């Protein structure tokens, strides 16, 4: 198994202090928010790793760190060598297909720009040919190149952003909620397209979504994040069949399931604490039904378990240890 991306001990802090003058007047110290807290993961070549978790847990920050839009505060991000020997090139697809396309450019130029910029095709004919090819790949017509982004629906615009991302000939795509702004019927078109492209081009995906059913459909591996940390990572089937971390269980229990609705549900208590002031010890202890005294003071280490999953939880560690020692 070749590793396409390896991320080690990655941390990113944001300065969220009040403006300098207010700080001086009100004698407030500088304030920092740790959006991503010491996370490590690997993405095997040709596979899809998804990050899931509730709003504000740091998914988009990881995406932006991996694509170089943010610098890490500490830790390393390493892409392995791609087909040409240079590190794999990564492109990003964003949630909002409306904001991520320049409204004044024709679709042709939107897609041709990376070709010109990286000198991937030379000469008008070669560029036009490649743009037509990319439009066809994503299920649009070469004639659509003449139009402006506003002339397309949300799903078609997301196809345009995918064509543009593919123009840079990436081997790695970081997709941050690529279908969250779309209706389900259109979401299905885009997810099908992304699966097909992955098979045909051998792409590797880092996929981000808060929608467990989308993630299940797309990924080989899933990493669950809570307040900037990965709390559990496992193969997709394993995570759904045998979720170990109490937060993963809570997430799986609360997602509405169309085909098997739980009408008399116990809704989980509480909500995500502010990342400005995270709880001590295990940051999930304020909502965890299994929390005990140790959880409030000691931060659980990430541990590997049989079956290949990794979990950061004291109680999981204790019960697995109890199982391992025959009485």
């Amino acid at each position: 198994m070749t590793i396409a991306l390896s991320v080690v001990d990655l941390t990113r802090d944001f300065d969220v202090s009040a403006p300098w003058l207010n700080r001086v007047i009100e004698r407030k110290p500088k304030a920092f928010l740790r959006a991503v807290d010491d996370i490590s993961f690997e993405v095997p070549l040709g596979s899809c790793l998804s990050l899931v978790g509730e709003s504000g847990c740091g998914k988009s920050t990881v995406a932006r760190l991996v694509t170089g839009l943010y610098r890490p505060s500490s830790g390393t991000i390493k892409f392995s060598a791609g087909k040409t020997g240079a590190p794999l090139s990564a492109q990003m697809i964003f949630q909002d297909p409306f904001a991520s396309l320049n409204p004044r450019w024709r679709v042709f130029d939107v897609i041709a720009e990376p070709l010109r910029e990286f000198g991937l095709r030379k000469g008008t004919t070669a560029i036009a040919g490649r743009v037509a090819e990319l439009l066809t790949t994503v299920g649009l017509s070469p004639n659509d190149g003449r139009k402006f982004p506003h002339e397309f629906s949300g799903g078609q615009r997301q196809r345009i952003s995918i064509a543009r991302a593919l123009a840079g000939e990436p081997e790695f795509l970081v997709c941050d909620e690529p279908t969250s702004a779309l209706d389900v019927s259109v979401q299905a078109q885009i997810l099908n397209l992304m699966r097909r492209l992955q098979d045909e081009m051998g792409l590797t995906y880092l996929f981000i979504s808060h929608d467990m059913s989308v993630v299940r459909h797309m990924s080989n591996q899933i990493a669950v994040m809570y307040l900037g940390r990965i709390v559990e990572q496992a193969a997709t089937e394993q995570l759904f069949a045998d979720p170990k971390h109490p937060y993963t269980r809570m997430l799986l229990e609360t997602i509405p399931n169309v085909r098997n609705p739980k009408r008399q549900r116990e809704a989980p208590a509480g909500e995500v604490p502010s990342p400005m002031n995270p709880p001590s010890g295990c940051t999930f202890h304020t909502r965890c039904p299994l929390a005990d005294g140790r959880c409030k003071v000691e931060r659980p280490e990430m541990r590997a378990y049989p079956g290949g999953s990794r979990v950061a939880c004291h109680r999981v560690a204790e019960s697995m240890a109890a199982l391992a020692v025959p009485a």
Partner: protein
Amino acid sequence: MTQTPILDVKALRVEFPGRHGTVTALADVSFSIQPGEILGVVGESGAGKSMAGLAVQGLLEPPGRVSGGEVRLDGRRIDTLTDGEMEKVRGKEIGAIFQDPLTSLNPLFSVGQQLVETIRLHLGLDRKTARARAIALLTEVGIPAPDVRVDHYPHQFSGGMRQRVVIALALAARPKLIIADEPTTALDVSIQAQITALLRKLCDDHGTAVMLVTHDMGVIAETADRVAVMYAGRLVEVGPVAEVIANPQHPYTAGLMGSIPALGARVPMLTQIDGSMPRLDAIPAGCAFNPRCPKVMDRCRVERPELMPSGSGQSACWLKAMETTP
């Protein structure tokens, strides 16, 4: 039908006169909601879900107007009321919950002040009793330490807490009907589950009728009793929620169900409906779904199907007419 429905909408039509002619945003929309019942209204964005909720409340933005049909609340016709009369119906008899809780809350007043104001306006209680009722409402919607929180301002609450406050506000005058437009869309799944559980409980406890507008079939499946599926400004299917999900009658509903990724078995490809919903000024002749329909027939391109009995509900599709006519 023995009981008077709380909400009874018949052949509702909404038009927007414009420079390039009049567009019809809603046509022939008919549905009813019984006491204690949650009707889910589902469909893609732009299908007209919010428009239906706004039209019922008399809140269409001009030049939009109700140009046909009727709306009855507990038997009484409300689409013909004056703005002043409708103002009294809203808040007292109809409570509203919108997607963004901040649009329903005034940032300058504490949540207690806003609740007390609404309670006094509609129930005519004195300040002290109204405050006690405000605290009771906050307790009912699950706000911890309600006697302290009652004096806090909207920005001091999290998104989920704010939506609870909005629900408390919608409940303040014990309305017969609650119209909730995407009430959980802006919230995380764990909070979403709390809010839908709360809606269900209110419905069971007080017999409130709820019109729950959402694009999320999962939320409908777990919350609603019946579901109305909208497409391009019309209802295409109405029926009991479990039936519609297990055995969709209309090809659009079937496509919608197929495009939702399963949490159970993993499939290589999702069923997709090609294309997208037409714009209101370019609705195809005949059945509006015909360019995307895998089962389209000649008749579908010329004649528009009305809702007709189908399965345990109704569906607007010629396939049904063919089954029933010998």
